[in-house]
């Protein structure tokens, strides 16, 4: 790891100036991806701005029919939250399945979505539930937020503050994890909410995507049977040592059916 200037601001304003003033700065939330990336010298920022001192950004609250999760809320807190379990149990289940207990003790929702790893779990939940990402500059719909592999709509000096999840009538997440890392080889989040049925897929492609054909089928008949015969094209899906593109395409169908069954 190359050395860097370490800054730990005590307020959001101080964090905004620190990142804006840095030559090549990186924001750090839990550091579960950034620290391994620095170790491998895949990144060598001049400054690391640690958001760990911003206690105001951590916490979970109910707001009408939504659950609002602060950007610095750790996965373990989402998994254990009585509010999340009551309102969107699928989201608590998803958080419980991220990495391992030590990763869940440090990793945060804001860090995960800002990184937008193609195999991360949270992007599928945000897109399927129609979540809104609030930042220091604006509000973004989840679908506009995730723009590509490790790419988001965030500007360099923009900091995520919280994520707003509308509750859903039915929702579930099914993932086929990599047995070593627990990252999703394929993960499918299915939600039936105010604006219809959404099926969001992570792990399979360069970034989270929706499957319109499945959504239409489930809108008419919300059951695993409705998905019989619907296949996803392997074109443009990821292929690596863990799984080939055609296997991932197959898994999308299997995980979608499991998610619908789990959602009831």
């Amino acid at each position: 790891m190359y050395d860097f200037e370490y800054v730990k601001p005590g307020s959001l304003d101080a964090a905004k100036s620190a990142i804006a003033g840095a030559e090549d700065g990186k924001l750090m939330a839990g550091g579960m991806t950034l620290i391994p990336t620095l170790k491998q010298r895949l990144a060598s920022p001049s400054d690391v701005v640690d958001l760990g001192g911003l206690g105001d950004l951590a916490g979970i609250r109910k707001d009408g029919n939504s659950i609002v999760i602060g950007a610095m809320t750790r996965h373990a807190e989402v998994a254990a939250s009585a509010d999340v379990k009551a309102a969107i149990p699928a989201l608590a289940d998803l958080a419980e399945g991220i990495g391992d207990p030590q990763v869940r003790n440090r990793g945060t929702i804001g860090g995960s979505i800002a990184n937008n790893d193609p195999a991360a779990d949270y992007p599928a939940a945000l897109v399927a539930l129609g979540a809104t990402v609030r930042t220091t500059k604006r509000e973004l719909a989840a679908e506009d937020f995730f723009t590509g592999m490790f790419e988001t709509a965030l500007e360099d000096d923009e900091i995520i503050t919280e994520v707003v999840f509308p509750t859903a009538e039915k929702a579930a997440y099914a993932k086929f994890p990599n047995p070593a890392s627990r990252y999703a080889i394929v993960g499918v989040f299915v939600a039936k909410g105010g604006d219809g049925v959404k099926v969001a897929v992570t792990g399979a492609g360069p970034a989270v995507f929706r499957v319109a054909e499945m959504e239409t089928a489930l809108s008419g008949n919300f059951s695993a049977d409705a998905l019989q015969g619907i296949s996803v094209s392997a074109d443009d899906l990821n292929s690596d040592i863990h799984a080939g593109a055609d296997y991932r395409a197959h898994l999308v169908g299997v995980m979608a059916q499991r998610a619908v069954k789990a959602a009831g």
Partner: protein
Amino acid sequence: MANVTMTINGKQVSGEVESRTLLVEFLRDQQRLTGTHVGCDTSQCGACVVHVNGDSAKSCTMLAVQADGADVTTIEGLAKGDDLHPMQAAFRENHGLQCGFCTPGMIMSAIDLVQHNADPSETEIREWLEGNICRCTGYHNIVKSIKAGAEAMRG
């Protein structure tokens, strides 16, 4: 260089570190607390697990500067004099180790589990050990040890 101060095993310590110094390097190289091991150094194996403010964390994937002001417990902080912590004793009694390299991390992780779940089932223990790898035992006796350790911790 930055100055960090933290409480390790109940004792306040300070030291000069680079921004990039890992918590595990601070513990092992500067504090000479070599019970915390570095196995993979890629946050997968769990040999470096310590408690930071009461929660288990992989000290190879945390900067020492992040732990400034924190309360850290390592494997050295568990025994009271010659009396092993009940979880340590359970690992010894149940043959929960062979080479012993993963054991400090296993024990620190196990104690965090019992803090959350006083009476974990075998499945819950196995799920919790997702982030701790053992190359010797096949895990069976580790799971047995943690069950016994949890029972002893309940008193």
